[in-house]
């Protein structure tokens, strides 16, 4: 579904990704872990071209990504959930959810609102449809952000540390929604997270990114039982509670 071929990415003369080859299969649930600054965000943001590679190719479905094709490809294939939620503060929750479908997919207003309501129920926030996002708690905002991603009705869901900006007591409500999504075969999910409990429960595959390369990859069991790489061991030792 997503294929990165020998992708390099530099910011100035700092090379952040040093030749990544990665194939995320259709329906796969992939978790990316790694220390701070290792390039996790850069990697996942390459998948919807929020970052453009310095060299190498990114394929989404059958499309070769390019600057000019980004809008078209993202519109029909992927959606992203950000650490900082990034809800549109000038729009109500309902309008946050319907803006994309209405303007990008030309879904009629009534229908877009029905779809939005369906996903609002799914994140258990149907009673918040008409409020502005800033009146909500962090956990609620992130659930709305997930609902907004779902209303685009695309197959690929990208999550960049969706729970890292949340107060601890709100982490679980967001993870619960994501665990629910992971049960659906249709969704291809790529999740940058340090929530190893979540990874263990939903991931088909985990990759450990460090120094701009994939140092280790495998099933969650592999990561918990016998990681090979020293840095990966040290990292896991640090984050597994």
């Amino acid at each position, binding site marked *: 579904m997503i294929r990165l071929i020998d992708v390099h990415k530099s910011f100035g003369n700092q090379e952040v990704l040093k030749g990544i080859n990665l194939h995320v299969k259709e329906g796969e649930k992939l978790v990316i872990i790694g220390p*701070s600054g290792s390039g996790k965000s850069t990697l996942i943001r390459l998948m919807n071209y*929020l970052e453009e590679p310095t060299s190498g190719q990114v394929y989404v479905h059958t499309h070769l990504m390019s600057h000019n094709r980004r*809008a078209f490809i993202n519109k029909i294939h992927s959606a992203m959930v950000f650490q*900082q939620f*990034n809800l549109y503060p*000038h729009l109500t929750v309902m309008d946050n959810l319907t803006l994309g479908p209405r303007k990008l997919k030309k879904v009629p207003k009534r229908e877009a609102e029905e779809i939005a309501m369906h996903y609002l129920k799914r994140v258990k926030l149907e009673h918040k449809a008409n409020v502005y996002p800033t009146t909500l708690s962090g956990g609620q905002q992130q659930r709305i952000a997930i609902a907004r991603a779902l209303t685009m009705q695309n197959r690929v869901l990208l999550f960049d540390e969706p729970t890292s*900006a949340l107060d601890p007591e709100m982490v679980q409500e967001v993870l619960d929604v994501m665990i629910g999504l992971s049960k659906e075969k249709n969704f291809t999910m790529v999740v940058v997270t340090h929530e190893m409990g979540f990874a263990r429960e939903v991931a088909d595959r985990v990759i450990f990114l460090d120094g701009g390369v994939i140092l280790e990859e495998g099933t969650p069991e592999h990561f918990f039982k016998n990681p090979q790489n020293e*840095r990966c061991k040290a990292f896991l030792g640090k*984050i597994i509670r």
Partner: protein
Amino acid sequence: MFKAESWAALFRDYRIFLNGLIATVQMTLVGFSIALILGIILGLFSTSGKKPLRIISRIYVEFIQNTPLMLQALFLFYAVTFAGFRGFKPLVAGMLALGIYHGAYFSEVFRAGIEAVPKGQSEAAYSQGFTYVQSMWYIILPQTIKIILPPMVNQVVNLIKNTSCMLLVGGAVDLISATNAYAVGLSTARYAAAAYVFSGIIFFAICFPLSRIAARWEQRLKARDQQGNIPKKKNAPDNVSDAELDRMIGENSDGELASGTRENSSEGGGLE
């Protein structure tokens, strides 16, 4: 000179001032429209990823802001007239000059407004599949309005006052030119002082309320900002840095990472 007679004369000749005021308002409205369009375009240029566009915008803004409006207006009027456009009226020249001049300032207002919207907003838009223009139109610009309005109104006040530059062009019909013509006119020179004061009162009556509105908006905006409801990135307890990892690997060189986990976590930095 502030005799009742003067005011009676002004009252009698009110049409002169009224026509001047109308011309000034026309210049303001058209000048504002031109400035707004130029400002949006140049503001978008200056925040775009394309360097040539940013340079164009920069040159325009610096050039216009660092030469006198008066000179620009004179140049525009005489250059265009000498270029053969005989029917080029001072009023039109005034509208264009004011539009071009304030367009540079509007552009800076828009730039500041767009830059004040967090980057995450356009990223969210791009991730949904919006193009640059769509994201500006549906998501960024609507959020800049509140930021832009106060400085924009201040610019409008300046624009109104700057209609005075038309005096030099000669033959103009705006309020200042009309007032001055009245004040130096053979039959009306006696009422000069009253005429100037009267004209000043008209300008004040228009500009003062606008300034107050702008100041009020600005204060409300500041008060709202101080509530600060934008989520900040928290240092997640599981954010392990590279340097920390290196240190840990060094400390645990004799293996035993699995059992060492708990001890490390207590010293390593807020694992709870």
